[in-house]
Structures are given as C-alpha cells and as structure tokens.
C-alpha cells in the first residue's frame, strides 16, 4: 500500500517535469501533500490524537492546503503569467528527471538499510524529490517557481523524515514545520514586495560584481 503511494509520489515528479503550467505544479503540490499524509498515517504504529493532529497539521493543513493556497493567491494578485517558462525544454527535463531517478536509486542501492521504517524505494524517491526540487529552482527564473521548487524539495525531505518520524521528538517536527511555513510566508511577502518594487516576476540580478 505504502509502496504504491510512494510510486505515485514519484510519478508526480515526472508529471511536474512535463507540465508547462504553474497551476499544474500547484496541483502536484497538493497531491504530494495528500500522499504524504496518507503515508504518514499508514506508517504510524500507535495513533493517539496528538500525533494525529500533528501529522494532519504538518501535511494536510500546511502542505496540501495552506501553502498552495498562498501561492495560488500570489499568482492571482501579482499578474504572474501562468506558464512555467523553464529555460530547458520538457523533453530535456524529463530525461534529466530520469537521470536523477537513476542516481538516487543507485545511491539507495549502494546504501545499507538498518532501520526498518525506511525502504530503498522510499529513500530513492525522497532523494530524487530533493534533487528535482533543486533542479526546478535552477531551471527557472521566476521567483514563484523558485518557491515551488523549494516546496517540492521540502516534500522530499519530509518524505525522508517519515523514516525517522518516530524518532524525531514532536517539538522538533513541529518547529520544523513552523519554520517551513514561516519561511514560505516571508518568501511570499518578499515576492510581493519585489513584484511591486522591481515590477518584475523574475528573480532580480542587479547585485553582482561587474
């Protein structure tokens, strides 16, 4: 069951690399949030209301609802054009995506797995997600896409943390997600301000050594 979800999660990455629309990526984010929620639920052995609420907060509320809504709102209110405008073509990014999968599975194949709640598959997908997130950041110029890449990367990390979820103290995981949401908030704030001052949705590059 978990494996299937994980695979779907991985497929969502492929989807992300073929899409051209920001909206699609937002959908992907929502999807990933939901999947993560499901996986967490399935993985947690003893379920009390604290952990449940915590998991729900982390995944459903933040990842699947709040943040996508922010971003969607930002896109609407800042006249950001809805194409991704990646500097690499879809085919190329697809190829790269598969390469990333290759790398991460190679790594997970090389790795010794002791802790039971982490399978090579999960690790591979998680790692691939992290790399994919960074790759999205690199391949795009728009601030909003940078943010999305960052979020996908965060999802990958969260997936990684599922393995250690039971070990992480609640305070840590809570703090982590709080930090995440805060940083996203501030990032959105900055995007708005940059939009208003620079009158541009791409990341500014006036600060350099000329």
């Amino acid at each position, binding site marked *: 069951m978990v494996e299937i979800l994980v695979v779907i999660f991985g497929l969502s990455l492929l989807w992300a690399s073929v899409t051209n629309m920001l909206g699609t990526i937002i959908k992907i984010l929502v999807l990933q949030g939901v999947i993560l929620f499901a996986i967490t639920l399935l993985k947690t052995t003893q379920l009390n209301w604290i952990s449940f609420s915590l998991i729900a907060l982390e995944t459903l509320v933040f990842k699947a609802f709040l943040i996508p809504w922010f971003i969607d709102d930002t896109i609407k209110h800042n006249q950001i054009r809805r194409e991704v405008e990646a500097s690499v073509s879809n085919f190329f990014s697809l190829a790269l995506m598969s390469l990333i999968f290759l790398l991460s599975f190679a790594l997970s194949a*090389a*790795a*010794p797995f*002791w*802790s039971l709640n*982490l399978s090579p598959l999960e690790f591979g997908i998680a790692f691939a997600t*992290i790399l994919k997130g*960074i790759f999205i*950041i690199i391949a795009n110029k728009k*601030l909003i896409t*940078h943010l999305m890449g*960052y979020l996908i*990367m*965060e999802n*990958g*990390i969260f997936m*990684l*943390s599922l*393995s*250690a979820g039971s*070990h*992480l*103290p609640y*305070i*840590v995981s809570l*703090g*982590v997600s*709080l*930090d995440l949401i*805060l*940083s996203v908030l*501030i*990032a959105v704030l*900055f995007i708005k*301000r*940059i939009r208003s*001052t*620079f009158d541009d949705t791409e*990341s*500014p590059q*006036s*600060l350099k*050594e000329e």
Partner: protein
Amino acid sequence: MNTIILFAYPVLAGLICIFISSRRRMDILILLHALLHTGLGIHAYVNRGSLSGMDDLGLFIYLILSVLYSAIAFYRLGMQDSTAIKDYRIHSIFLMIFVMAMDGATMAKDLGLIWIFVEATTISSAMLISYSNKKSSLEAAWKYLFICSVGIALAFAGILLLVIAQPGEATLLISHIDASKLSPFWLKISFVFILIGFGTKIGLAPLHFWLPDAHSEAPAPISALLSGALLNIALIPILRMNKLMQQSGMADLAKELYLLMGFLSVFIAAVFVLKTKDYKRLLAYSSVENMGLIMIAFGAGALAHYGAYLHILGHSIIKSAFFLCSGNVLAIYHDKNHEKISGMLTTNPISAWLWLLCSVMIIGLPPSPLFISKFLIATALLNNGSYLLFALLMLLLTIVSWGIMRVGLSMCLGDSERKQSLSIWMYLAPAGLLLIASIIGIFLPVLD
C-alpha cells in the same frame, strides 16, 4: 530561571515596542536587552550552567554575541535614521528576535533544535536586511533568504540521514549518540549534507554567494551582527558534528573536507578582494576569507585548535568593528564605491584612523589576535608537512591584505576640503571593540 528571563525579555520588549512610538525608547529597550544579555553571559561564565545546560562552546559563542550586541546597541544610539517609525519598530522587534534565535542556537544540544533556531535566524535576519526599502536591499534579502533556506533544507536532510545512520532507537542529542554503532556510510553522507547546508550559512565557497550581497546591503549594525555572530552560530552544528566524526574515526575525511572548503573560500576572497569596488562587499569577502581560515584551522589538526577558537573570537570582534566603521563612512559619504571616496583623513580623521586600524588588524598585524591564530594555523599546516598548502595560503593571504590595505589607504589619503563629524557613539563602539581585540591579542585568553 536565567534562561526564562533571557527569552522572556525580548518578547515583553517587543510587545512594548508595538505600543511606544519613539525611536530613542526602542533603542533604550534594545540597549537594556544587550546589557541583560551580557550580564547573564558573565553570570553563566562565573558559575557554569546557570544558562540551561550551555556547554563551553555554546558559552564561548554566546559571550562573543553579547559583546557584539552591546557594542551595536550603543552604536545604534548614534545613528541618524530617517525611515518611517513603523519600519523602525519592526526592525527593532526583529533585531531582538534575531538575537533570541541565536541564543537558542547556542544553548540547544539537539541538532534538530539547533536547525530550527538557525532557520529562525535566517527568517528574522532576512527581515532585518530588507529594512531600508531599497531595491538592492530587497534583492539581497531575497537571495539571502532563499539560498540559505535551500542550504538549510539540505542540512535538515543531513540531520535525517544522521538519524537513519543510527540503528534502532535514534536520537539527535550529540552527547547521547553512540559513535561506535553508527553506520559509516550514512554518517559520511549526512556529514556532507550538514557541511554543505550549514556551510551555506557560514558562507564557505562555493556556497557564499548570498554573503556579500546581504552584508553589503544590510545597515551597518546588522552587517556587523551577521558577520560577527551569525557565521559563528552556523559553525556550532558543524563543530558538534566534528566531535562525532572524530569519535567514529572519520576525522581525516572531515579534515580533508574542511581544508577543501577553507582553501576555496580563501581563494574566492582573494579573487573578489581584487575585483570589488564596494567597500562593504570587500569586508564581506574578508569574512569569507576568515571563515575559510577557521575551516583550514580545523582541517589542519590539533595544533591549530586554539588558533581556530582564537580566530573565531578575534575575527568576530574586529570584523564587527570594521562593519561599524563602514557605517560611519556610509554616513559621511552616502556612497559605497570606494573609488569615489578619498581624503577621509581630513574629512573625518577619527573614522579614517578607525578604518585603517581595522584593516591593519583584520589582515592580522599585531596587536591583533588574528596574528597569533594565523601563526598557529601555519604551524599546524607545516606540522602536517603540507608545505605547498602553506605557501599557497600565504600567497592568498598576502593578496587579500594587499587589497584591503589598498582600499583603506586610497579612501583615507588624499585631500578634501569638507569636514564632517559624527555622533560620539559611532566612534566609541568600534573603538571599544578594537580595544578589546587588541587586549585579547596581547594577553592571550585561555580558551576551553
């Protein structure tokens, strides 16, 4: 108890700030915070552990932070500020939050907690950097926030990998981790992740790109705090990981990575010290260089450890004094291009001499503590028999010091007819820091 006070005060003060609307009062509040901070630090130094379970390393960084913070609080008394009171209020509040987050980082033992606090520093200081609503500062803040967040996220991945590396019941309290049971494979990978993640925050090449932008765009006290305190804060987790690496017998790998990043940083610093036209960027690059030196010190072996800590101490104090001086220069000329500035010795002699002294001490001429630390680092390098690395290091350091001195001289010398004086606090704060630094450099303290 003390800890509670330490964390309660900023909250209260922040609340008060919301209701008062006089700059002076906010400055006073911050000054009080700084003094409280210092007092608690001294108290903790006198009888250990009065701040919740802070170990020597934490206390060391904390005390440096206190010194810088008080100096900056005094410096702010002298600053002329023309922004709206609203922004100023936000600024003050976030300043206190920033310091609070750093305190947390110094106290936390659990890597996860450290991570949280470091991320918190990123968020709060991003607000501080974008304080003056100029385009450039906004851009700098964005880059700082984004790059550091990505880096920090990688660091978190590393922390998770550290968890994975532990068979069975895992923990993130370094002191509780049993190094012998760790899986070397995962440990290596997690170390790489953590090094790169927090290395971004420290500003080690090639992850340093945010640093010159942020340092040059932030207002002087903030740059001082960023460069003097924040970089050290980001050092803490790496140092804690370092213990782990040593225990699990992978010290050599760690050392190689340190040396690699250290030399890259010094090299990058040398390149851009020649290139840059902006004197605050120059200082930022010199921070990159010094952080690289500290890394080299940890990579060079046991002989240099005293040197490394001395270097952290000296660099923090001198560099923040330097940034405060740059604030003076900016207040005089309202221009950050050093080629447009000359004759400061006649325009404002005190700032000029402060600037020259700062440059002299940052390039490690006595009575700067950096002199001793550089000597020790070099000795350690030679002790490893890596003569070529030594030669390379000396060459790069010479280039850096040439650049810094050239800029300083060309700004200070020359003739100009205008005279301008600044508030006394803007002289006292950097001068005091320099004094402390030279005292440290002459009567070397016993560290750890």
